[in-house]
Structure formats: structure tokens, C-alpha cells
């Protein structure tokens, strides 16, 4: 199976083709791993446009670039943090098309056309988002490294509850989820705080959500 010639198409040209269309059927019958590896001795580059905090950003990135690295290294939006880089800690949480995700586990090229909100887009020191102000008021952090992810997650959590999305902590699947501490704790479990500011984080979110004490 290694007898086939390498793909008669440059890597760049291949990427420019973008979408795989019906032309895919006209491609050579099989491309071996060896031939393909030879075509990948250099990084593959791709163009992508992502709307970040309301502003379209056109980037040319190595296909390996995660959304997190695009934000931090290409756009210098260093509020989003790289903790584990494997989706386990939540420090990289951003809001994409209205949903919170781990930006370390998606590629920038996969987010072409997406609308991304980072901690910088939620608020800045001179105009804080209510959730940012509440974290400060309630001391919802110590070292602060996980905080941008905690806050992006918290803002999205309140929207998820408003949208009626159930959680593991919801007593009933058929009734609207309640705005109570146990719901917030469960929904925030993807954001790890090694300083252990969890109780203050829940207090901060509860205040913004107007959860009765």
C-alpha cells in the first residue's frame, strides 16, 4: 500500500481547498501513512477568523493551535489560563457561542466563525462584570490563577439554570432546576481551585444569582 505516489497536491493548496467536497471521490484511491508523513515534515498552517469579545480576528495558525493558545499567544488575551491543558482543571474556560467550554480542548481552526467571550470580554478593572465584582467582594480566590475560568464558568452556569438545563444535582428532571447552592456546586465541579476558595466562590455566585442565604 506504500506504492502510491505522494499526494499530488501541496499541503497549502490542500488546506486552501478547505471544505472536503465531492472532489474527494476523485482523489487517489489510498494515501499511505508514509507518503502522508512526508508531506507533514513542516507544520500545516490554516487561516481562521474568530470573533473574540465582539471583534473579528483573522489569524493564520499552525493547525495544532488550540483556541486557548490562539487567545493567549496570538491575541495576547492572557486572562484565560493554561492549567492542565487537558480539560481537567477548567482554568481555560471561555464562552463560545453562548456555551462555556475548555478552550484547551478545541482547535482554533475548529472555531472558524465562532463568537468567543473571554474574561477580558466580560469586564475590565474600570467596568467590572457583576460576577467579577462579587468574586472580589467575597474573596473568591487566593492566588487567582483559576479565577478567570471560574468567573467565565459561573456566568455561563447561571444562564444554563435560566435555560432550564438540568444537572446531576437536580432532584427532578421534569421541573426547572433550582437556584440553590447544591446546583451551583455541582455545575462548577469542572473548575478546580487548589487554594480551596470554593465556599467563597459559591457565595459570590449566589449573590449574583440572588440565591437566598
Amino acid at each position: 500500500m506504500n506504492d502510491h505516489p505522494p499526494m499530488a497536491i501541496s499541503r497549502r493548496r490542500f488546506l486552501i481547498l478547505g471544505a472536503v467536497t465531492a472532489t474527494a471521490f476523485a482523489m487517489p484511491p489510498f494515501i499511505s501513512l508514509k507518503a502522508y508523513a512526508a508531506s507533514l515534515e513542516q507544520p500545516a498552517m490554516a487561516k481562521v477568523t474568530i470573533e473574540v469579545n465582539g471583534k473579528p480576528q483573522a489569524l493564520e495558525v499552525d493547525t495544532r493551535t488550540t483556541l486557548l493558545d490562539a487567545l493567549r499567544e496570538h491575541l495576547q488575551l492572557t486572562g484565560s489560563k493554561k492549567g492542565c491543558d487537558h480539560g481537567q482543571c477548567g482554568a481555560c474556560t471561555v464562552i463560545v457561542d453562548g456555551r462555556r467550554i475548555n478552550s484547551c480542548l478545541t482547535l482554533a481552526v475548529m472555531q472558524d466563525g465562532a463568537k468567543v467571550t473571554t474574561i477580558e470580554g466580560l469586564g475590565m478593572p474600570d467596568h467590572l462584570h457583576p460576577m467579577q465584582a462579587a468574586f472580589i467582594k467575597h474573596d473568591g480566590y487566593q492566588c487567582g490563577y483559576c479565577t478567570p475560568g471560574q468567573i467565565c464558568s459561573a456566568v455561563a452556569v447561571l444562564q444554563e439554570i435560566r435555560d432550564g438545563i438540568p444537572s446531576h444535582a437536580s432532584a427532578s428532571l421534569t421541573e426547572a432546576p433550582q437556584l440553590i447552592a447544591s446546583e451551583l456546586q455541582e455545575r462548577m465541579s469542572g473548575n478546580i481551585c487548589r487554594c480551596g476558595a470554593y465556599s467563597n466562590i459559591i457565595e459570590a455566585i449566589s449573590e449574583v444569582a440572588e440565591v437566598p442565604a
Partner: protein
Amino acid sequence: MRAFNYSRADSPAAAAAQAAQIEGARFIAGGTNLLDLMKLDIETPQQLIDVNHLGLDRIEATDDGGLRIGALVRNTDLAADSRVRKDYALLSRALLAGASGQLRNMATTAGNLLQRTRCPYFYDTNQACNKRNPGSGCAAIGGVSRQLGIIGVSDACIATHPSDMAIAMRALDAQVETLKADGSTRRIAIADFHQLPGTTPNVETSLTPGELITAVTLPAPVGGTHVYHKVRDRSSYAFALVSVGLILQKDGSGRIAVGGIAPKPWRVEAAEALLPQGAKAVSARLLDGATPTSDNQFKVTLVERTIASVLAQARDEA
């Protein structure tokens, strides 16, 4: 991470055709497991084919009263769907017991079924692993195996399948719909979808190269009381030590599938026939032939006790 080419497919057929043409090509959907493994050089695809924009993200009623769940429906959307919450509560509960809110927003129905084991020896490229590197041996056997499998395992591999969703799909008799590179389609019963390791633990599903999952279908609702109970080391965001999905009918009959103990969702229909006799009888039949290690011997007892717990809960709720 190794360099790779990236393309967006514009139809399921084009995606399947391209995947079959390029050795080592992978579909990418949520990416939550694949990118994780690529960062560790455990998965090294030369080509990623993005299937996120193919319109496979809808949940539709089927003619026989069931549901057809598009392969790209996100775990959050599936768990929150009003029909699923009402008629397939086990599926909602299992989904919500898995991963984190962020991950469920990304992870897809098909990707959840295709996720790889979280066996620490599979993840550590310095260790022997027949699943990652066929023929290299299994460092988990004789290693730290507390989390690992007790049944359906082999001398080559004792990894478990990590999915919660798949446990519910197995109890609900789901079917996996696929599209092959030649344009043909087929339906695979969930029972036949995941493969036991035997001597080839690197072969995990019955999919052929390039075969694309397009949907997972559920038969018409079976009623009953649905309970999913996941026992884990922390109360959220952890993989199961043991999980049990139960559908109990008023007449005492029911279905039961177990996670955290085997390379695939573990369901033994002959054990379900023993439900009226209680957890001990069901558990003994379900785990007949189990080969636990000294580290995970506790799972044998834990399965029985978790079954007793879900039976009690289901009777309370009925």
C-alpha cells in the same frame, strides 16, 4: 503534538470517503478526548476531518415512536432534551453524571461512544499497553488496578470503557447508525458495537475504516422507573468505580446495565430475569466469570450493593 492537516467535510459521504482514503485519518467532533490524546502522542492522526458542520446535530422522532439522535448532538443538549428527560430519564441521568459542564457542552453523542479508556497505563506512553501499542504487553495487569475491569477483560488488557452515556444506551437497546465510505449504511446494536479485548484490545468497536457514525436511535419508550447511580471517589467530575443503570417495571421485571467494571457496557439479560430475587442473585449472575485483581476485588461487592441501592431507590420512586 504531531503536525496534521485539517479539513472540514461538507457532507457525511465526503467525510467517510476521505477518511477511508487517508491512512491514519480521524474524524474530529467535540475533540475533548482526541485532542487530549494527541497532546500525549497517543493518537497521532495525519489528517483531521472536522464533522461538526454536517447537520448531524438534531434529535428527531422516529416512525416507531422512538428517537433518532444525531451523532453530533452535544451531551448537554441530549441530557436537556424534554423528550429524553421525560421518556428516557436514564439517559439524561447518565449523561449528567459524566464529565463537567464544559466538557458536556463540547462532547458529542458519537464521540462519547468512541472515547478511549482512561486506564493510567494506556495514558502513560512509558508503560507497556497492548491497546496503545499492540504486542507490547499490559502493565496494568500486576500494576495498580483499583479502577480497572473485573469482567470481559483478557490476559492482554483489563481496561474499562469510561462512558456513563453508553450504560444508558445499552439498557435502552440503542442502535448505532453508520455510513461507510462506499455510501452504504448500516445499524449496529449497541450490544455489538463495543468489542471485548481478547487478544486485540486495540480493536475497540465494530466500525470499519472510514465508517462514520451518523446517529444513535432509541426504540419507543419502555416506561418504568429509571435510576442511574454512579459510585466514585469524589461526588462530581470523576470516573465511575461502579455505576448502575436500572429500568424497573411495576411487575418487578427490569433491565440493568453496569459501568466501571468492563471494556463495554455490561448487561446480562439472564441476570435481569433474577431481579425479583434481589441484588445478590442478579449480581452473582451478572458477574459470573469475573476475574478481579486484589486491587479491584472490592468492585464485586460494590456492584451487588449498588444494585441493592438502585432497586431500593426505584421502589421508593415508583
